[in-house]
């Protein structure tokens, strides 16, 4: 057991997967000597060489496009996109090529490519460094989309993602990179596509992923003082989405609040609300509510705390839900 930050847990997970499979290569901007702007790949080039951990030219479409070619050649590329807002030059290659290659080839061409993207706000950054673009990818057939929320999941999920034969957009909540936890590397992890109840409760379910899991856990702790028992569900995988676990939770609590940093309009919460309404129409005590970023561009950092869902906004939504 070791105390690891989430960044270090990802680093250790990548190291393990590179040791296990010589076809795993890491590629991205400044991931070699620098170890990435968040140091997630720190030391890996030194230990595995420049053939397996390499700095790319500054061109995101090139990163994904060449990763596709490497995958056709039998490699398992793990691409780092430096920040969420920089993925869009690669969007065409991800959506039109990476996502569709397996179907286009009737399964003859596997695309075991992982695209790591630090996402979300709360770090006081300039424009394009705090976005939550997950819905664009979850909407795209052929991609799978996951987000880790803590060091234990980070360690195992990155390995599971690399082992998958499908292309995966792997979101890392950048403001949680430095949070620590005990990581038992010998434990058996949950399946990558499973959601998990991270705090049981009875009065309402808070559903979150990535950076908002901790926010929801804090809200549940605060609510406990008011005698309210909130269940917190870490979705972990946005596509595929583990509906059985979501339904099971909401059947018990009869109330659901979806929390994400991304704008609400046509976001993950919209999809979850529609599906839960269809499945549990007669069992709900309140409509599905959403606590999200606003339908604006991500604001300048001096007011980002107003944009981001926080403990108070979550509890406000809990009040609304319980008020039905």
């Amino acid at each position: 057991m070791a105390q690891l930050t989430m960044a270090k847990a990802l680093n250790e997970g990548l190291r393990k997967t590179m040791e296990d499979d010589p076809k795993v290569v890491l590629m991205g901007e400044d991931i070699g000597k620098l170890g990435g702007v968040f140091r997630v790949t720190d030391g890996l080039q030194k230990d595995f060489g420049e053939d397996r951990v390499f700095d790319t030219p500054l061109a995101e479409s090139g990163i994904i496009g060449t990763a596709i070619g490497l995958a056709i050649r039998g490699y398992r590329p793990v691409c780092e996109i430096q920040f969420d807002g920089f993925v869009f030059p690669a969007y065409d290659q991800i959506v039109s090529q990476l996502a569709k290659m397996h179907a286009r080839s009737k399964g003859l061409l596997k695309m075991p490519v992982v695209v790591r993207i630090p996402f979300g706000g709360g770090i006081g950054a300039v424009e394009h460094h705090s976005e939550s673009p997950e819905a664009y990818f979850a909407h795209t057939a052929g991609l799978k989309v996951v987000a880790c929320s803590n060091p234990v999941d980070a360690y195992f999920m990155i390995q599971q993602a690399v082992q998958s034969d499908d292309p995966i957009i792997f979101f890392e909540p950048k403001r949680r990179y430095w949070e620590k936890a005990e990581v038992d590397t010998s434990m058996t992890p949950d399946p990558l596509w499973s959601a998990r109840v991270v705090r049981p409760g009875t009065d309402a379910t808070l559903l979150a992923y990535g950076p908002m899991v901790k926010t929801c856990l804090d809200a549940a702790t605060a609510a406990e003082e008011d005698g309210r028992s909130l269940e917190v569900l870490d979705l972990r995988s946005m596509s595929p989405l583990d509906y059985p676990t979501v339904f099971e939770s909401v059947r018990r609590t009869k109330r659901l609040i979806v929390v994400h940093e991304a704008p609400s309009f046509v976001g993950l919460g919209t999809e979850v609300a529609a599906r839960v309404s269809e499945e549990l129409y007669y069992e709900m005590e309140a409509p599905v509510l959403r606590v999200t970023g606003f339908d604006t561009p991500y604001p300048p950092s001096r007011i980002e705390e107003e944009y981001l869902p926080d403990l108070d906004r979550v509890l406000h939504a809990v009040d609304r839900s319980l008020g039905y």
Partner: protein
Amino acid sequence: MSVKGSPLAPATETTPVATSSSAGPELVQLLTPEGERVSHPDYDIDLSDEDYRGFYRDLVLVRRIDVEATALQRQGELGIWAALLGQEAAQVGSGRALRPQDFAFPTYREHGVAWCRGVDPLRLLGLFRGVDNGGWDPQATRFQLYTIVIGSQTLHATGYAMGITKDGAVGDAETGEATIAYFGDGASSQGDVNEAFVWASVYNAPIVFFCQNNQWGISTPTANQTRIPLYQRARGFGFPGVRVDGNDVLATYAVTRKALDDARTGQGPTLVEAFTYRMGAHTTSDDPTRYRLATELEAWKLKDPLERMKAFLYKQQIVGAAFFEGVEHDADELAARIRKGCLEMPDPDPLSMFDSVYAEQTPLLGQQRESFGTYLSGFEGAHA
């Protein structure tokens, strides 16, 4: 290999612009439009009579595939067809230059290269008929599926070439591997193509960028894409470029073979600009009479890739009338087989759209498939 022609000049008013009427003195040619065999200081090759016959046969059969497919589209059997008419030599020459271990990344017009890679033409028709997205095995044929978004495949080819280097499969003149990325003059403006140039150069990737400059991107002439001859772009990226007569199958073969051998022996990328002409429409949905003059087409007809090879074979007395009759007979049989196979091509099962979306099917997609199957089976006479 050195860059041919005059030193790269800055883009000024006096910079010569590539036009369909002038390829420039830098053009590598081994066979004139009149069918005269000429020599070249850098690209002379020895070819046997059997080689010559083989090239001619390929050119004729590939054109026949194209003509038959165009006819099938006109009769409503294909949704659309992207004709290669006029580009047969560029494709057969480069396609025959590939060794078995090389990997080709085509656009959607590389029917001639597909032929050289042993892809059944019916598989190409499947895509244009709408029964699949190309039904051939890209790994077995070492010919990637057609890529429709302009230029995307150049990055895939570059990544594949980087993998060749990582595998240590460059260096040997016989067993070394190389990739070839096909694209056109229009694609040369795409960011992905320029990124591919950067990457291939920086990683010294074993790749040949094969640009068929057919003078037109749908209705847009090459002059709208570039102020300098396209092959000269390579120099700015740090690798050689060469312009070859794309209607000369011998020169295209020689230039591409040299570029591939340079790549497989670790000398990095080359840009080959095959100067050719799209004699037909962009696709069967296009109408070139709206944007180009008939006189231009007439001028290019005099440079027809098949006619010059035929004239050469006649003049050299390499073949007799029986050979031409035999090739025509083979072409007729091929066309008949394509027509029959196309008409018999079954529509896919509607539920097949759910297959192969993922290597590991997701529960939700499985449920959607099942639910749609149940819905379909509720109709009388349903086959699902």
